[in-house]
């Protein structure tokens, strides 16, 4: 992984985090929000492999942890695992269909939300309830899947451009 690519990944994660906290956090539709950061992490894992997915997930999760109210490290743990897993599974696929990222994001969102909810419940956080968890899993997964094509297009486009630049340079 080049330094350029690392910068792109950091920018992606940071932008996603900003958009998530400033814009999408207001978009509480039917009591759930899309998770752009998670979508970006999964897309990065699909284009750049489990290593990048893992680091991006950990960084993004930790930053979200720091900016949130819950116990530090929970989202870092969850997103780190999600990024790694997405990258690993992607390695078994020859080529990506258009719907593949959506499927990945759908599964990843479900897993991440459930995992995060489980962690919260484990630490006795009163905000998590079974009904709320199911609803937020279903809705967040739906929103994330809808967001995926755009995010994936952006991530892979920038990935190609950086590779081209590397080839030329």
């Amino acid at each position, binding site marked *: 992984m080049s330094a350029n690519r690392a910068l792109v990944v950091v920018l992606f994660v940071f932008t996603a985090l900003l*958009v998530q906290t400033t814009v999408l956090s207001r978009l509480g539709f039917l009591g759930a929000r899309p998770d752009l950061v998670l979508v970006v992490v999964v897309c990065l894992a699909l284009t750049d492999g*489990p290593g990048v997915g893992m680091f991006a997930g950990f960084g993004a999760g930790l930053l979200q942890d*720091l900016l949130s109210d819950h116990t*530090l490290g929970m989202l870092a743990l969850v997103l*780190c695992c999600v990024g790694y897993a997405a990258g690993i599974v992607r390695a078994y696929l020859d080529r990506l269909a258009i719907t593949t990222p959506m499927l990945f994001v759908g599964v990843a969102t479900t897993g991440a939300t459930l995992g995060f909810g489980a962690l919260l419940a484990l630490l006795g956080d009163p905000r998590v309830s079974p009904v709320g968890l199911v609803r937020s899993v279903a809705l967040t997964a739906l929103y994330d899947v809808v967001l995926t094509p755009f995010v994936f297009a952006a991530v892979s486009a920038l990935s190609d451009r950086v590779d081209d630049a590397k080839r030329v340079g």
Partner: protein
Amino acid sequence: MYRDSRRLRLILALLVVISFTLITVDYRSGEGTALAGLRRGAATVVGPVQRAVTRVVRPIGQALSSVGDLGTLDEEVDRLRKENAQLRTRLRAAEDLERRVAELDRLLGASGGRGAEILPATVIAETPNNFEWTITLDRGSRDGVRADMTVITGDGLVGRVLDVAPFTSQVLLAIDPQSAVAARLANGQVGLVRGNGIEPMVLELREPDVKVAKGDVVLTSDQGTYVGGIPIGVAETITRQPTLTMRVTIKPYVRYTALDIVGVILSAPRETPAAAVRPTPSASAAPDPRATSTPKPTPTPTPAPTATPAASPTG
């Protein structure tokens, strides 16, 4: 590749351990520790950026949040729309009220000049078809309205009461072809004003050698059903009929298509009908159409003949 994935797994394990450590430490310690400082640091760094971004994308954020609030927003829109409609209605009612107060003022002014008792009434309905010209008032026999009473506005004659119900009454407008109003000119010539629907009303004068000019005021005569002395309109075109009668079209003072508040004359004036002849009501409303076209007071011709005989014996 194989070594690579092993390394990755190692790093993953490391990150997971770090995460769990963070969770444990943060969960145990609470506030005032190094981790809290870390949080504060992150907030210090990211906060300004977030604020800047928010400032830029606030319209987007609000648009999105309004999309998110679609359900409640609909209710809000509904509520505001209802309120708006209510306010608009109230405003219209207030405007209407102002206009009606003005009309009532003029009506009372008109009645004051004649000493008649006038019952204000509101037009609540008009004839729906094109062949009759009647209106329905919101006053009936309970209010003292009786058939054949004269109905006026501040401008002039409206018509007469046709039918009376307990709470409403029907008025035959002077422009209805059924309507025939005993009328006279200011100079005392009598005739009959017939309604003609949307065509102008016509004054038929029986005597052939009547001096009538355009702009002469036509009033009701007290010899008929109507209360005398109420202005109907001004003469417009004068044609001599082959039957030696004069046919005078009248431009009415009252706009019969825009009636709202009218007055029912409950009792005839206290004074003699002749005194009610004065065409101008005492309340001198500035935009009164009669003010310009008012002829000399009618009594003028009367003293002249009496003066001459009185003078001749002396001389």
